[in-house]
């Protein structure tokens, strides 16, 4: 396997991890906003 292919495969793995982290971070952020809103409403 050529070096360029190995680097690209590594990149796809990094992208997959990044996607999972971004989804979880985005959901966490939305949860935090909702909690703040609830506290403000109270």
């Amino acid at each position: 396997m050529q070096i360029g292919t190995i680097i690209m495969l590594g990149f796809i793995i990094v992208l997959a991890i990044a996607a999972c982290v971004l989804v979880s971070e985005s959901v966490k952020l939305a949860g935090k906003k909702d909690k703040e809103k609830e506290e403000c409403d109270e």
Partner: protein
Amino acid sequence: MEAKRDTFKSQFGTIMALSGMAIGLGNCWRFPYLCAKWGGGAFVLAYLVGLILIVVPLAILEVSVGKHMQAGLIDVYSAAYKKKAGKLLGGVASFCNWSQNIYYLSTVAALIFFAYACSTSIWKRGVPGEKMYASFQSNTFLYIGLFLVVLAVLLYTGLRGIAKGVEILSKYAIPLMMVLFVITFILLASTTPGIVEGLNYYLNPDFSQLKNPALWAAAIAQALFSIGVGPGILLVYGSHIKKNGEIPLTMLTICTMDTLAALLVGLTVIPACIAYGVDPQSGSTLVFLVLPQVFERIPCGNIIALLLFIGMVCAAFTSAVGNQEAVLTTYGDGFKWGRKKVVFIFGILNLVLGLTAMMNGKLMEFWQILSGDFTFLPSAALGGFTFAYIIGVRRTREESINPFTDYKLGRWFDRWVQIVAVPVMIFFMAYTFIGLF
């Protein structure tokens, strides 16, 4: 009193619904085929540069304009230009984008057939993909019957509204499809001799291609087309996000998911093409030609085939829903038509134009070219121009983006979009458009 707008129920649902809209047939065949054509890793590199520097900023802007104005393309263009011009520009751009559904639904029907065929006795007989595809198209009863079923479900989803229809389906279908493509690739790589040559063909960068402006134009156009920036789909989806919805991180997530999906499909399809002797430049039917051969050879192929084609059906279907939702919201808001009326009008149009295209291959090709290149490129350029210069980046950033996010965008964002992103996008759109003639 104005009717309450249908909004997404959760942040995860918003991400998945937008990913479902973005991830579709463009990822399943267009990305891998362009990637193979333009030097593998070199195309991926150009795609990523274009995505980060051009597409992500424009996607953030378009969704934020939609969220702020809570309106479809006609209303937004009417606010930006004169009312008559807004109706004409927004109506035409939205219709042209919707016209993708004329050929899209027959492809969804083919995916359903392949899910059935690859998981049952037809697959076990080892019929080549091209013969299966041809036999499906020649079976008029099955071809039209499945098309009608898909159309009926699509219209029903349109009547139910975006949150109940798309959000629930996308939450399960998109992750399922991506996981199954990973499993298929692992099984394929561990059982197929010659897969390394295929991987080198697909991924090893040919950097000499980066000097070619046509490669950059193709990569940026694909990134815009894949995410759906410009012709108003993102704007409409933005109009269904709650007013306090977070945008920058959400759009970065969606663009990452879309790119990952495209790369994963390519990992399965392109190396398999090389290993099994299928031409990777076969175009829109590539997945139908090569995947049956893959499933014939890997362990538990029939079960994986069934699940994977179902996942692809859902991904393609949610993109069709995205195209439909753009016209439903745009025409519903713009002409003050009820949702049922717009669903009925576009349902009849889809039925008539879809059936005539299915009966005539040249007509089908006409709709593919019209919606894929000829109208997408100018409408994307018009959208970028309007959102950036007429409606304004600063106003959108200050009123719709920054108050609702921890990742605040500075004034650099305004300058970047207006001085770099939109001019570069319009240049490459014009370059590609002129190249069509």
